[in-house]
């Protein structure tokens, strides 16, 4: 990679887990906003933020859907919070084959937080609907390396389908679908 620099606005959501009350309004509004047409449907299972909560242990951690992971991690670490052990997966951001978190419930396609880029407001919706300020929004400028060309969403989706069903089967389906058109 070449070392071209450019400035970039880094959008940042700050999470204060002490303020979270577990209401899941963030999940609700994220799923509603990303429904087509917008707000027509509601389903937290489609949300790109999930509040990981163990109420009796007083753990409330909003986690944003991050990158799609092709395979599950090899080694697993553990978190110890208040003397209790948690699997690293418990708070992981990846849409990964080992679990159903951050996947569309029907198709299994991975979900990723897009910072509500289609919304006219600067502040992402989960932040707006989090009334207790467990989620707050910050922007800062940063000098970064020119970005690597990223896989388009479609490609990420396809890749996960291929992982799940194998390339051949996916190509068969695509071929069949194009015949129907």
């Amino acid at each position, binding site marked *: 990679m070449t070392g071209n620099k450019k400035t970039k606005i880094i959008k940042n959501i700050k999470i204060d887990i002490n303020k979270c*009350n*577990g*209401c*899941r*309004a963030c999940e*609700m*509004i994220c799923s*509603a906003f990303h*429904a087509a*047409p*917008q*707000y*027509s*449907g*509601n*389903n*937290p*299972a*489609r949300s790109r933020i999930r509040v*990981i*909560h*163990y*109420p*009796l*242990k*007083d753990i*409330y951690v909003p986690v944003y859907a991050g990158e799609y992971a092709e395979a599950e991690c090899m080694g697993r670490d553990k978190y110890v919070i208040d003397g209790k052990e948690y699997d690293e997966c418990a708070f992981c951001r990846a849409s990964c084959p080992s679990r159903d978190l951050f996947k569309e*419930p029907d198709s299994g396609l991975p979900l990723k937080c897009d910072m509500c880029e289609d919304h006219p407001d600067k502040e992402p919706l989960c932040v707006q*609907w989090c*009334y*207790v300020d467990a989620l707050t929004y910050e922007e800062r400028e940063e000098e970064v390396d020119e970005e690597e060309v990223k896989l388009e969403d479609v490609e990420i989706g396809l890749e996960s389908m291929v992982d799940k069903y194998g390339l051949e089967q996916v190509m068969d389906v695509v071929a069949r679908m194009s015949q129907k058109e």
Partner: protein
Amino acid sequence: MRYAETGFNLEVDLTRGNIERVETDPRDTELYLGGLGTNAKILWDRVPPEVEPFSPDNLLIFAAGLLCGTPATGCNRTIVSTISPQTRLMAFSMMGGFWAPELKYAGYDKVIFRGKSPNLVYLLINNDKVEIRDAAHLQGKGAIETAELIRQELNDPKVQVAAIGLAGENRINFASIEQGRSSASRGGIGAVMGDKRLKAIAVRGTKDINVARPAEFIELCKDVLNYIKFREENPIPGVIPILAVLGSPQEMKIHDEKWHTENFVWGNARLRRKDFWNDDIAKQWYDSMESFRKRFISCYNCPLECGATLAPPGQPTYMMKCFTKLTYSMGAMSDSLEFGLRIAQRATEYGVDGYSAPQVMAFALELLEAGILTEKDFPEMPDDNAHGSEERFYYLLDIIVRREGIGDVLANGTYWAAKEIGNGAEEYAHNNIKKIEQLPLKLGWLNPIYFLMYCTGAKVNITQIEGQFPQAPFPKREHREKFVKDWFQVPDDRFKQYFLDWEPRGENSMPYYPTVEMTCDIVDWMEKMHYIDDALGLCAGLSSFHLKPPYHIHNMPKFISAGAGIEMDEDKLSKAAKRYRTLVRAVNIRRGMRRKDEKPPEDHLKKRFPELEKELLDTYYKFKGWNNEGIPTKESLHELGLDYVSQDFIQRGILADGEEIPAKEALLEIEPA
């Protein structure tokens, strides 16, 4: 396509182990909305009055309100309806939390249980996969513990569980159904669940709930949120702390308990402690709450965080909200909040109603003091300690929930226990309406609004009918003028005038003002708002319970139109609410309830006004379309499209064709099975 609702119920026959997914009729949604409304219709249609509460033919219905699962803030109520073993009338207790939206996301509006399972089971709903599972390993487990064990066994922390504890399993007449931070407590519905040998219902859903007009709906939601913010920044001046701010009341946050501890009565709803609240107590209570409370917690999709996680050192963590904070301390005559919060942990795991349980225990101790019960009835009971009857309360709670010795009798609640004990015990079951223990509140003077609500509220719980209109007049006209200025929630401006002219003293003061007509109008409005909440699944803490709430008669029809796609306006909504309110009444009338049952506890009011009380009830019955016995008339039933009710009434001789006939003798006095 169905909007807001899923259009499907689950029918579970526990006797045969049969489960069916049944499509519902969208016309019923138009007529009865959902939640309580459609529950009432099902109970009317399918549970004839001969059915005993603990009969396999009694239904136990868990309903998600019409708007649960949509983005509408605070729309998360589960409405549980059945025939109560305590009142032998229809019970429709509700719980907040997360269960109802999850049921919607699983694809169902209601789960309807009938029959009785041969052994202890739980129901698991995971979208289309629904199964009855063995619960032998959960027998005797606490309600919260059960939920945790089920989550572990399914390895899914996202499953929502409603469960009973030992009290439900042992059919304690005031057993609750617990669900994390929320519970459906009143009327002993947990006992019906236990009778059906159903330990829990676990739900997980990942389907969509759709709304009819998305852009419009989301704007309505935003307006509500903005108004919540406004109310947070502008508490209502001149009222007690819990009424100044929204929520279901904010008992976990508010430390100032002067009003409750000095105005409510202690022990077996007896003693008023006028100078109880002082700096020492305030500090001790503050410290107890602050050291136990780990976090404020909300229900699904609501910012108000009325609940709290409490972790009393040395005891399991649990969650609490509302007035249960005080009932155990006050019942045990203990000046320690720590005691109340500690025993409430055990009571929550057992799953008992936080209003009834402490009163039953205090009642038992009064009977002992009076010599109606003796030391022999309480073998090995500890003595009072310096703080009151704390140790005794632990002892009593245990023997009641386990139905040991006299506990077996007390487990039926003060009304039925007193009857069984006899020997004058009835005098001590003094704080009941329709056989249910009430808030420990005794009034000196008659407030006509509260009088009518106490008499006629079908949920038999004052907090479930009051709200909207101030509890008392404000001292000065200028205060009242200020109050009505931004009071847009009123259905009509005449309500502002009622309040403006309401004086603490003089001609326009209680009990003769508000006038009988005004009182009827006000009570009808208050009640209507609760019924709408209970059909939509809205929390009363954002709506009917409060002065100036974000949800009101002007925006609710819009929520229904844009959400469920049912054209709605204020009149149509009011009529729908009246329809299923009348149906709840009809279920109870058919079970024998009459005017004679509609009265406040004998000693509730220090000064009585028999003529005025009679006039209030006469006029209100007429206003509601009921005859002088409180039976809905043929004409009013016809107007609501409830001719099937009047036909049934006529067939049973409850109504004569066209005129009133004397009430048939009530079924209500039959001893519990």
